[in-house]
């Protein structure tokens, strides 16, 4: 029974691991922290898994646990964006796919997102993952209206970061 649960869990996480990696790369700045956070999220997911009822999609459920771990539970917080020496694992755009300006623009944009606060990052992340405002709101525990207002403020904030 337990073995079965383990197998089911690891299989599901293996095929959905991208979500966790994306959260990790948004909230950490070096490979060690990335792996560290990935591990902590995995542990938290596994601990919560017996209560996962399957009335939500596994991936939907993962967003919550992953973000909660990154924002609140993860302890090592040496994650200021001071060092740019680490090329974020997430943003390896193939040069031939874009022209230079576009690639440059995307990189700047991604760096700007990484400079946001913990909560703002979570909002942007869910937005980029194409979640609707009701899901964003319930993941964070705020109202839908406030999620929209907040998102607009973040867009302004990003504009300021990009054009100081």
């Amino acid at each position, binding site marked *: 029974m337990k073995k079965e649960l*383990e197998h089911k*869990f*690891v299989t599901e*996480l*293996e095929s959905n*691991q991208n979500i966790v*990696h*994306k959260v990790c*790369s948004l909230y950490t700045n070096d490979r060690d922290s*990335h792996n560290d956070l990935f*591990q*902590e999220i*995995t*542990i*938290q997911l*596994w*601990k*919560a898994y017996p209560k*996962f009822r399957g009335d939500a999609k596994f991936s939907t*459920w993962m967003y*919550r*646990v992953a*973000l*909660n*771990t990154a*924002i*609140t*539970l993860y*302890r090592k917080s040496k994650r200021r964006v001071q060092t740019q020496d680490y090329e974020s*694992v*997430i*943003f*390896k*755009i193939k040069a031939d*796919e874009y022209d230079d300006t576009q690639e440059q*623009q*995307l990189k700047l*944009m*991604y760096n700007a*997102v990484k400079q946001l*606060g*913990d*909560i703002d990052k*979570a909002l942007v992340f869910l*937005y*980029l*993952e*194409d979640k609707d405002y009701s899901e964003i709101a*319930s*993941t*964070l*525990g*705020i*109202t839908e209206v*406030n999620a929209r*207002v907040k998102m607009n403020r973040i*867009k302004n904030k*990003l*504009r300021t970061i*990009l054009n100081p």
Partner: protein
Amino acid sequence: MMDELELLKKDWQKQEQGLPKLSYDQIYKMIWKKSSSLVKWIFYISIVEFLFWITISFIPLGNKGVDLPEANFILIINRVLTITQFVIIIYFMFQFYQNYKKISVTDSARDLMKKIIATRKTVMRYVWFNLGLFAVTMIIVFTEVLVLNPPPELAERIANSDSSLLVWLALGVGLLAAIMFFGLLIWLFFCLLYGLLLKRLTLNYKELKRLEV
């Protein structure tokens, strides 16, 4: 600007090929590792705090060799205090456990933070209670030693003093200073400890809460 975020969004899905890929075995190994989450840290520190104050309460405070009739009164107060203390410790531990159990990683971000803060507050109330109790105990011991069973030299000095009121005043101030010093020390220690642990959480929680206004 709007367009840039849209651009990032469009590109977002394409990035997946650049992400690390862990194997089944690598993930399987991870689920057996120990968590080092904030909640776990708070849990351990709280246990240490409980143990610390329980230990303190076992340190015998001098009420030996007092056989004046007034001493009985002090003994009774001491006993009542000890019993109250244990009832309250059990109450706090129960509350702490209840709050701790409610913490769930599948809650919304805001609820999760709220519950962690609530758990923390239980322990903080417990610390305040102990500081208060500490002060009361100090006063009792002080009264006991100085009033009921004073060391001969001190009794003599008080008796010989021109203004014994002044001596008492000085002793009183000394006692108060001692209580405040220890209180401050312990308070500082916990502030530092939890300040470090909970700074980020408190900030994030405030930000989410501010949104609701």
